[in-house]
């Protein structure tokens, strides 16, 4: 009993440590003070000014850019990665090993190396950097995760179900759409979510590929802001909203998965 108490207490202690900085931000999102750490009374003004939009045009456009880049990169990676996974799955073992190895490179590489290498690619070929290069860079480091999420579904799949569909009169295309696609869909969805969050979070690769034509994502905006000395107060409610959304989303997904398992 004591053992269990200490075990639980340790977990909660670590969680408190992990969450205390985020909690500070959340608490101070409800006050107006420009400098974080000063409590000047409860207020939701930062929230309303975040949503009224008008005052920080550059922040709003950074948020907008971040989401469009993430949606584009996640969608393209999911399509590219899923098709690639089916291809890799059907390859002979040696070619498959080469593909798997290459696919793992962006995962194993630190972000900064991916960033530097893509920067060198774009400058060497004289490609001007901006929105397109960021999306391409994000696809490059997101697709491997999609391949890795789809592959287990293919491996788990009974290899005969494709043949069974053909046997029952489906054309190869129908068999793919009606049998293979539903089978790998869960892998594609988790691959998409993973790609989306990776893209939103990315800072290191983005900063090397975004160029200097004034394009900003949330990460580069925060970075520029922080270097200027402080955090724009509106980032506090924004972080709070993002954090709470992600928290609720992940807990709901996991609760559902747990329930499904029990059934």
């Amino acid at each position, binding site marked *: 009993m004591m053992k269990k108490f200490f075990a*639980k207490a*340790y*977990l909660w202690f670590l*969680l408190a*440590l*992990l*969450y205390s*900085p*985020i909690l*500070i*931000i959340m608490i*101070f999102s409800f006050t107006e003070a420009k400098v*974080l*750490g000063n409590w000047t009374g409860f207020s939701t003004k930062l929230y309303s000014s975040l949503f009224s939009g008008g005052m920080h045009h550059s922040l709003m456009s950074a948020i907008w850019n971040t989401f469009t880049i993430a949606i584009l990169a996640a969608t393209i990676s999911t399509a*590219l990665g899923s098709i*690639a*996974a*089916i*291809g*890799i799955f*059907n*390859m*002979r073992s040696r070619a498959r090993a080469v*593909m798997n190895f290459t696919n793992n*490179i962006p*995962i*194993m590489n*630190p972000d*900064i*190396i991916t960033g*530097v*290498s893509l920067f*060198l*690619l774009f400058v060497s070929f004289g490609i001007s950097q901006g929105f397109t290069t960021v999306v*391409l860079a994000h*696809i*490059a480091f997101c697709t491997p*995760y999609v391949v*890795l999420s789809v592959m287990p579904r293919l491996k788990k799949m009974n290899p005969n179900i494709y043949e069974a569909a053909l046997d029952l009169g489906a054309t190869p295309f129908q068999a793919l759409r009606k049998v293979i696609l539903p089978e790998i869909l869960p892998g594609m969805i*988790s691959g998409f979510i*993973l790609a989306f*969050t990776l893209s*939103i*979070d990315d*800072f*290191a690769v983005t*900063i090397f590929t975004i160029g200097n034509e004034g394009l900003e994502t*949330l990460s580069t905006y*925060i*970075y520029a802001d*922080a270097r200027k000395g402080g955090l724009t107060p509106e*980032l506090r409610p924004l*972080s709070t909203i993002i*954090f709470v959304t*992600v928290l609720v989303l*992940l807990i709901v*997904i*996991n609760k559902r*998965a*747990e329930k499904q398992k029990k059934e």
Partner: protein
Amino acid sequence: MRRRNWSLPYAIFLLIFVVIPLLLIVLYAFTDEEGAFTMGNFRKFLMHPEAMNTFIYSIGIAIITTIVCLVLGYPAAYILSQKQFNTSKTMVVLFILPMWVNILIRTLATVALFDFLQLPLGEGALIFGMVYNFLPFMIYPIYNTLQKMDQSLIEAAQDLGANPLKVFNKVILPLSAPGIVSGIVMVFMPTVSTFAIAELLTMNNIKLFGTTVQENIYNGMWNYGAALSLIMLLLIGIMSLFTNEEDSAQNESGGVI
């Protein structure tokens, strides 16, 4: 019918956006601005005490961060994996969740916490920030291996007369070794390669190797920057020799969902 050709577009994509860029790092590292072969970039690194010191200092910080993460993370992973202490997957999610928050926001939050508690920013804040940022990377792989471990192995050890300490030393620890190894790699690698984080945590007083790379690239010293990147890549390559491909792949792909 030849569905293996479906990977062709991605193969071409990988070639252009992964393989060629990495080769470009090598190419730039061994050439000067005119494009002629040179070892000068590496000589510059070895002769330049500042870059060298930053390099060694970064490795030191990474080692300390890794050790702290292991010491804090292993017990947490163990407790999370044991049914007697924890049956809820949500608890695991809570530990991994901070990974989903933008690293800059997390770092700025740490700065805010230190400000709030009126603690000085510096080396202490740097290590706290690094541990805070990368602790989930240690907990998750260890948790994964411990959780997959066959519980009857522990019972078998007890049955054969091992006391709890022996059970841990002789059974649990060796069996969780793969998780520990990938945890170490997954904490060490990002710690040694981050940039911008250290500056924010130390009011620009401490610079890590990642920042040196970034600054050089930013200031147009592409060849020198590429050489420094290559050195970092070698360091990480040596690190990842200790883990095998499969372990890291399965841990990374695991995610939460």
